């Protein structure tokens, strides 16, 4: 589904990714771990097409297309979803409107009929139940006045409504207390399926107690330096990241 080859990228003239390789197949869950500054969030933002993240080399192929050629909205319509590390507050644009506009933009792109207000509400209320969210939130501004936990939950709700093929979750666990973490993880787990791939970008192993990954990669210095299964995450938790760097340079 996703094939990243020798990806190099810079932010503000500073080289962050230095030849990153990653293969993700449908049905898989990959965890990308690494210390601060290793390039985790840069990878997530490059995949979503954020301005200011300049690709200086390498390639990203998503479902036989050059992902880097697509505008952010085209990527989204092709089924790529980024759950933001810091979801943005947009006062004046209500959640229901955003969800409906986003969903119908995708459906239109796929040649499917747009949902009417009734069908849309039925769908979104069902997904909100899954995320333990109150219906009143639909008429509030996007993330406006939400707590950190509510914002992250809202990201997963969007994901549950949009049903992406490839979901990239950027530090979705940061700032969550244990109850919120359980709900968020429950939402993600319910979206695991044979035709969907999930990439979890995280600093801590904690999230992986709730969402069991098929692969764990360690990112360091802008490259993947080690790949393993879920036990690698546990090892990182007990030993820290330093040994992986030494292992990589050895």
């Amino acid at each position, binding site marked *: 589904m996703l094939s990243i080859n020798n990806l190099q990228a810079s932010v503000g003239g500073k080289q962050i990714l230095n030849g990153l390789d990653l293969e993700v197949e449908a049905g898989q869950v990959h965890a990308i771990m690494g210390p601060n500054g290793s390039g985790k969030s840069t990878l997530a933002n490059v995949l979503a097409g954020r301005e200011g993240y300049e690709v200086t080399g390498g390639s990203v192929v998503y479902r036989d297309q050059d992902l880097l050629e697509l505008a952010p909205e085209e*990527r989204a319509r092709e089924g790529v979803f980024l759950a933001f590390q810091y979801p943005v507050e947009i006062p004046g644009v*209500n959640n229901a*409107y955003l969800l409906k506009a986003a969903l119908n933009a995708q459906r239109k792109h796929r040649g499917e009929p747009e949902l009417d207000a009734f069908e849309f509400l039925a769908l979104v209320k069902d997904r909100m139940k899954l995320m333990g969210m109150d219906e009143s939130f639909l008429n509030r501004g996007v993330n406006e006045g939400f707590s950190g936990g509510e914002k992250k939950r809202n990201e997963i709700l969007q994901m549950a409504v949009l049903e992406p093929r490839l979901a990239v979750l950027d530090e979705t666990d940061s700032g969550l207390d244990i109850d919120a973490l359980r709900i968020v993880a429950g939402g993600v787990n319910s979206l695991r399926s044979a035709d969907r791939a999930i990439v979890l970008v995280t600093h801590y192993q904690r999230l992986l107690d709730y969402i069991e990954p098929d692969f764990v990669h360690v990112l360091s210095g802008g490259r993947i330096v080690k790949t393993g299964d879920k036990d690698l995450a546990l090892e990182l938790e007990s030993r820290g990241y330093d040994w992986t760097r030494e292992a990589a340079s050895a």
Partner: protein
Amino acid sequence: MSQTAANDNGAAALSAAETAFRQSLAGPMVANATVSALRAAGRAAFEATGLPGIRDEAWKYTNLRALARRAFAHGGPVPVPDDAAVESAAIGGLAGPRLVFVNGHYVAELSDLPTVSGLDIASLASLIQDPEAELPENLCRLADPGQHPFSALNQGLLEHGVLLRTHTGTVISDPVYLLFLSVPGAEPQTCHPRVFIDSAVDSSLSVLEHYVSLGSSQNLTNVVTELQLDRGSRLRHYRVQDEATTAFHVGGVFARVGRDARLESHNLHFGAALARLDLEVALNQPGAEVEMNGLYCLGGRQHVDNHTRVDHFAPHTRSTEDYRGVLNDRSRGVFNGKAIVHEDAQKIEAHQSNSNLLLSEQAEVDTKPELEIYADDVKCSHGATVGQLDQTALFYLRSRGIDAEAARALLTFAFAEAVVGRVELEPVRRRLETAVAGALPDRSLIENLIGADA
């Protein structure tokens, strides 16, 4: 202020507009002595100052050259627009009385005046020829002709307009709709209507003043509104200026707010080539409160100048102000907001904010929030911003599949909606949302947003 200030080279010749104004002011006397006296005072005040020029501090950013060139005709025959044109200009769906004015003249045939219990409505024109008619004591006393040349001109030509008075303790739920239509004639017309609203003790009322052109009028509307809020009263005052982008519009709203009374002012501009509004509120007694919402959505070469002033004369008074501008093309906005906390006005709150969104590199805004504080136990804040759309929010929307143009339109709409959303009259809010969308380059992209509350 010099007599020739509108004439930039300082030559002694009066501008075409001013010459025409002076001729109009020398018009015939009226039967009502009070009106005659008010007119004479207005005329004297206007003749003492003449049209303001950019050397006057209050007019520094608004050049009246384009206005001054035109010899506006006054008091000619009133064209009668057909019903369909009136109804398409009017905001439909509002319950309550509707008064329609054409080029300042009240037109009974187009109006709808059901009896509203607890509310007196009178057309000013019907009173001025009546020697016995009693006029409100404070008519022309809330607006100071010495400070405002256009108000002086309006007062000197006092004839048309409306007087509204609530009865003590009455809550009037249906809004009063004042529709001012500007209709072009052979030459540019001017009109000088006056609105006087007396909110009696413990009463509650909503009034909408709506200014629209039929056709591409180059008329000048010069209107003065006086608002008197007695103890414990509540007045919601909506003012929507949506005249043709070729028109001239000057307005003054002057309010006096009494003990525990509350004024809500909504002031929205979409139209006119040149518009200027002075909003002045005196919080005279403890507990007096004002909320000021403002929006200007401009494009082309439109120029809109809002000057607001709040005087906190008494302790325990409160003012909040949120004015927003959306400026496209080569349009220009001016905001000057003054809050003055007078001596002994302790325990007051005054908050003021002006934010501007520039959608084009040629658009321009001059903003100046000012606080003058002569008391020491007060809570005050003020601030102004001028900027472009938030890039992070833009990316967030695009990452959800919304294309860049639609995302920009959506964020712009949301910015204006913060002000528009405070309008409680739903048909008015819908019309405003449509007007905001219409001011955007790509309205079709957000048309389904209007009324899209899920």
